[in-house]
């Protein structure tokens, strides 16, 4: 059978949910809004599941992989340039779709409990469904332009959701910041697309891959430029150096949004984009090196900031930036499967961390400062245990999910040669830092005594704890599908799209050794956190005061926001203010008004001399004029002129 998988339904169901809730939601009863918002992602998830049967060998096998479905009509048809509405389902997009719709569905369910007391939840759910629509378009897109549509769309949904509480200035500003910073990245993406178009004449991924495999000698040069431009786009969306600044601020949005968009799915779009265009990066060692270095640097940089943050969500935000750095490190050493593997496990445990943090915030009545929490493990047992699973997972505790995925990336970096060993060491240090700040968060939140007297923590409703439990299970066992040589079943599954990398037969001993080192790094992080934070003590404060310089640098996030503000924001604002006030307002608009007025007044000054108001002078002019006309008509001009020797060619009728 040539069975269509009805891929178009995957994005369009959430879009229908967006339209229904967005247009009618205000008038619909709350239960109906919730039902619509939940059923649409559920439908998408069901379709993705049924589509995945063909890939897993359970259902009817697919006629071809990748499975392509496109609209009969072209989207753009201009000369030699063709773009179709085509959706491509292969192993890579299937993994992404499972994550997006699966985790997305869980977070939708969680949101029902979290947003229960919120006004305008119809708006929230409409945006959330809109996000799913664009994200699935991004992942399914068969060409760069359609991907860009999804890319921009998720940016829009992110903006809307960060600024969901738009009455708060900080939330509105954070949304704006995210949007503007993403524009810079999108500029790189656009230039990359232009370069693709100029050199390949097409934006369809499969065509570009075919052209490249037909020209095996083509490396570097313009490919490096294209890859780097695309990577600029990825740094914007995936919050890498130097464009990461928007993600920590994006925590102004509701916590489930932070979990879904700013941890599990949207911010991984850059990693997905690089994996999708990996054939391009494979041809440019230089671009790959840049990706790896930026990734490792971001991982370390964000982890150090995360060490000293006191807002529970900000710790997680910097942790997200740091983990995304790992994924880019994986991409940069051409271990795309490992990067996607870490993307998947990260989406489990980071969504879980955020949702658990949301549950804590919910229970604490909106408090986000960890210094006011503590002792929550008896009052919120489900949240405590699921959070523990997530913390162990991200810290790389043996046989939890990130143990497998992070080690795969570190191992790939180690064996990649060149500066690989340096990158590996940076990754290892980051692993220790990660473990430290996560256990710090865990101790501060759940251990000791409650340090706030206003809060009355209570466990969250089942609609919130249910998703927590499912994600906890996934965080614990999710890594096992990547167990074995070359990432085990997961690596084999992705091999047709992403290829097999770092095939090192007989290197198992080395790999286990590296894992042991990574676990050791995690254990050190845990031990330090345990020393400082398991009991209430002044030792952490003492350390902070004795190293006041570095500590202040970290607390102020390396002053990056201030530097950007000084270097870019203020000059641009001053320039645009200058243009608005002086060039546009004074010079153009004011000048135009003065010019028009001046012309009118000049004309008036000349013409008003005729308007003496003296009736008789008007009449005299009239009479004189009439007399002059008469003279002109009656005088025999031709004869007169001929008299002084001028001949006028005048036709006279005799």
């Amino acid at each position, binding site marked *: 059978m040539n069975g269509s998988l009805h891929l178009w339904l995957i994005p369009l169901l959430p879009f229908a949910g967006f339209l229904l809730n967005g247009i009618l939601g205000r008038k619909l009863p709350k239960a109906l809004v919730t039902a619509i918002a939940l059923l649409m992602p559920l439908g998408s998830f069901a379709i993705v599941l049924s589509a995945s049967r063909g890939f897993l060998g359970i259902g009817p096998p697919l006629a071809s992989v990748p499975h392509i479905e496109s609209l009969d009509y072209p989207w753009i048809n201009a000369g030699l340039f063709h773009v179709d509405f085509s959706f491509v389902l292969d192993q890579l997009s299937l993994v992404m779709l499972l994550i997006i719709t699966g985790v997305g569905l869980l977070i939708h369910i969680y949101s029902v409990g979290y947003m229960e007391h919120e006004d305008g939840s119809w708006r929230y759910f409409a945006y959330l469904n809109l996000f799913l629509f664009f994200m699935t378009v991004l992942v399914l897109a068969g060409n760069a332009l359609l991907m860009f549509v999804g890319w921009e769309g998720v940016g829009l949904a992110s903006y809307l959701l960060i600024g969901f509480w738009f009455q708060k200035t900080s939330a509105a500003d954070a949304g704006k910041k995210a949007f503007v910073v993403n524009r810079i990245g999108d500029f790189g993406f656009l230039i990359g697309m232009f370069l693709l178009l100029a050199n390949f004449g097409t934006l369809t991924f499969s065509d570009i891959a075919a052209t490249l495999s037909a020209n095996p000698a083509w490396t570097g040069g313009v490919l490096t430029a294209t890859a780097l431009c695309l990577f600029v786009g990825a740094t914007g969306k995936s919050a890498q150096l130097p464009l990461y600044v928007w993600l920590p601020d994006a925590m102004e949005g509701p916590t489930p949004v932070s979990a879904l968009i700013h941890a599990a799915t949207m911010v991984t779009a850059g990693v997905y984009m690089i994996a999708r265009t990996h054939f391009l990066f494979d041809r440019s060692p230089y671009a790959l090196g840049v990706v790896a270095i930026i990734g490792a640097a971001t991982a370390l940089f964000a982890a150090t900031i995360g060490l000293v943050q006191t807002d529970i969500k900000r710790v997680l935000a910097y942790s997200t930036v740091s983990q995304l750095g790992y994924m880019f490190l994986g991409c940069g050493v051409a271990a795309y499967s490992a990067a996607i593997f870490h993307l998947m496990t990260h989406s489990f445990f980071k969504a879980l961390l955020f949702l658990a943090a949301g549950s804590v915030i919910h229970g604490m009545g909106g408090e986000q400062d960890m210094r006011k929490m503590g002792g929550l493990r008896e009052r919120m047992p489900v949240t405590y245990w699921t959070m523990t699973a997530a913390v162990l997972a991200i810290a790389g505790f043996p046989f939890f999910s990130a143990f497998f995925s992070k080690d795969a990336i570190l191992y790939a970096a180690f064996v990649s040669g060149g500066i690989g060993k340096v990158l590996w060491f940076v990754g290892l240090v980051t692993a220790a830092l990660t473990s430290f700040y996560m256990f710090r968060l865990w101790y501060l939140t759940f251990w000791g005594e409650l340090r706030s007297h206003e809060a009355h923590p209570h466990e969250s409703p089942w609609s919130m704890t249910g998703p927590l439990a499912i994600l906890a299970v996934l965080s614990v066992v999710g890594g096992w599908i990547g167990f074995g040589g070359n990432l085990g079943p997961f690596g084999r599954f992705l091999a047709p799209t992403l290829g097999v990398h770092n095939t090192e037969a007989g290197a198992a001993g080395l790999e286990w050794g590296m894992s042991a080192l990574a676990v050791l790094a995690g254990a050190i992080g845990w031990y330090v956190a345990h020393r400082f934070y398991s009991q209430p003590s002044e030792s952490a404060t003492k350390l902070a005061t004795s190293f006041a310089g570095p500590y202040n640098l970290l607390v102020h996030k390396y002053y990056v926001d201030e530097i950007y503000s000084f270097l870019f924001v203020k000059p641009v604002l001053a320039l645009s203010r200058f243009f608005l006030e002086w060039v546009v307002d004074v010079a153009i608009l004011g000048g135009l008004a003065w010019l028009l007025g001046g012309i009118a007044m000049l004309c008036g000054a000349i013409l*008003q001399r005729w*308007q003496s*108001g*003296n*009736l*008789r002078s008007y*009449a*005299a002019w009239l*009479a004189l004029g009439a007399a002059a006309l008469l003279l002109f008509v009656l005088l025999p001009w031709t004869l007169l002129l001929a008299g002084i020797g001028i001949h006028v060619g005048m036709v006279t009728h005799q």
Partner: protein
Amino acid sequence: MNSNYAQLLQQDVPLTWYLLLSAVLFCLGIVGFLIKRNLITVFMSIELMLNAVNLSFVTFAHQWHAVKGQIFVFFVMMVAAAEAAVGLAIIIAVFRARATLAVDRIDLMKL
């Protein structure tokens, strides 16, 4: 001599004389319009110009044996009558308001 005079009487008045008379009347009207200060006199000068034109219309109509010119004269007289009615009414209104008919004084609309 006598017969010459009688002959002269029997002859038609030449066309040129009528036209000259018309031109003279018209110029009188213009001059009157330009130099007179009293609004009524100005008004009468306008009437004079109209009738000067009427005269030349009739002259040409007689010369060319065309009745159109005479019909035109009726039109002009009709318009002149209507104009006189409206104009005199305005003059009376102006006089009531300003107690003067000197055209130079009626200059409220001037800047």
